């Protein structure tokens, strides 16, 4: 599994159960710093919203969490991110880390495999070969992603030929097939119709009891509907983090947050 559980147990009592700890995070591409001085904790089983306009560094933050900087030589990450109290940049088995983190992209990515193979891919990468086990995983994940009823009769047709909304639910099913501890969604509703968006949002509410969810969204109201706590990113910094209700109903520390959530800019 993921490295040795080497974190300092004293620093994180079981009560608070910090899933993801971010300290002084700085992300740059080449010489350009696009995210600086970000610190917050994300707790187990919460939906953590991240809102903010384009180029605020939201997506880069997600990339830093599951070490996608490895694939981009331009990208450098400073400060620290801990996952289960282990610093992600100290984890030697990054593949094990990524297997515990499910990611959903803004544009649905239906891999050009059958629907079945799309969902079975992650378990297979993890070494699962037993067909019966895979059948169970595929059905469970497609059901949880609210797609099973629509595709159960054509699991062998191409995933990339589904409609955009279906593909996005397929992507979510695929992310769930990893049995992730953390699910990161990056503006998942951009290419999805409102009805499908609502169905996915219901799915996320149900998942809250099992996984921790980071929800990056440019829809302020979506964060309000779903997130327990929300961070507001602006121009490469984290302006504030707070209970979602506080951001919307008054208790903001920074006037810019108020302006953004009320739609006065951004």
């Amino acid at each position, binding site marked *: 599994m993921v490295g040795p559980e080497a974190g300092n147990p004293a620093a994180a009592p079981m009560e608070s159960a910090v899933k993801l700890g971010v300290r002084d995070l700085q992300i740059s591409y080449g010489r350009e710093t696009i995210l600086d001085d970000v610190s917050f904790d994300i707790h187990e089983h919460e939906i953590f919203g991240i809102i903010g306009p384009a180029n605020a560094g939201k997506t880069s933050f997600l990339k830093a969490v599951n070490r*996608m900087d490895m694939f981009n030589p331009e990208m450098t990450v400073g400060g620290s991110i801990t996952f289960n109290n282990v610093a992600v940049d100290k984890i030697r088995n990054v593949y094990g880390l*990524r*297997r515990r983190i499910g990611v959903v992209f803004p544009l649905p990515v239906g891999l050009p495999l059958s629907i079945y193979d799309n969902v079975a891919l992650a378990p297979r990468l993890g070494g699962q070969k037993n067909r019966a086990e895979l059948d169970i995983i595929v059905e469970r994940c497609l059901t949880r992603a609210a797609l099973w009823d629509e595709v159960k009769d054509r699991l062998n047709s191409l995933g990339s030929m589904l409609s955009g909304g279906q593909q996005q639910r397929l992507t979510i099913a695929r992310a769930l097939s990893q049995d992730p501890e953390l699910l990161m969604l990056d503006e998942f509703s951009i290419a999805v119709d409102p009805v499908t968006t609502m169905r996915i949002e219901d799915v996320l509410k149900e998942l809250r009891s099992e996984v921790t969810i980071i929800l990056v969204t440019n829809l302020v109201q979506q964060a309000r509907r779903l997130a327990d706590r929300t961070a507001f990113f602006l121009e490469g910094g984290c302006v504030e983090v707070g209970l979602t209700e506080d951001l919307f109903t008054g208790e903001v520390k920074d006037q810019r947050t108020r302006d953004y959530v009320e739609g006065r800019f951004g």
Partner: protein
Amino acid sequence: MFEASALNRKNETRQKLFRFGLGTMTGILILPVVLIMGTLIYKGAPVISFEFLFASPTNGMTAGGIFPALLGTVLLVIVALLASVPLGVAAAIYLSEYAPDNWFTRAINLAIINLAGVPSIVHALFGVGAFVIFFKFGTSILAASLTLAIMTLPVVIVATRESLQAVPMAFREACWNMGATRWQTIRRVVLPNAITGILTGVILEVSRTAGETAPIMFTGAAFFLPLLPQTVFDQTMALSLHLFVVSTQVPGMPEQLPFGVALVLISMVLLMNSLSIALRMYLRGKKKW
């Protein structure tokens, strides 16, 4: 309000002139193809027969068939493919999927481009020096095929790399995010979707290889052999060299025989090209995203 001004009319005339001129130029392109094929079929078709394809030459090559040459070309192509495809595809995968963008990678890319530009006679001399003499393969099918392989390597590499890069980056990222290693990603997502383009490149390479003369002349192809080759260390006859021989080297050659040989050679190449185009069209219809 809508009357044409003098300037409008001038532009219109000019546009017609250029359209006609460019169209004519394009039309002229098919002329050589039609003439070559026409002549070959008109003069060569009468000599084509079962015996011509499947018998050995007799009477100092002025009669009989071309079977040893036909077989030799097929052998040369197959051995060349066995060498160049694994090497070329492996190199292309490395360059496209693994290599960081640094001076070393750029140097390799430059080398590939230059390799593609080296004249085939220079490849032939390289083949003599490297495979015939240094590796002591002698003039043999192996030496000739390896020479052909080196020569066609750039085609395989470039075709493979392009079809790898046509696979959307999002597929790779989705896979990496699931905890797949680079190799797992290549194996499960990238290669299955690039294989069609790779195949097309390989088939095109075959057709090029089949027609080459210079690289095999000094390295393994013989003017005339009484026996068929038994191992890859034997020399062989080849269609392209045979065509050269019967056209220029043998007195008293019946006029139509060289045309027959040329027709067989070009049919082979065209067959391969058509196959490649058909494959590409078929697979494009099945495009998965």
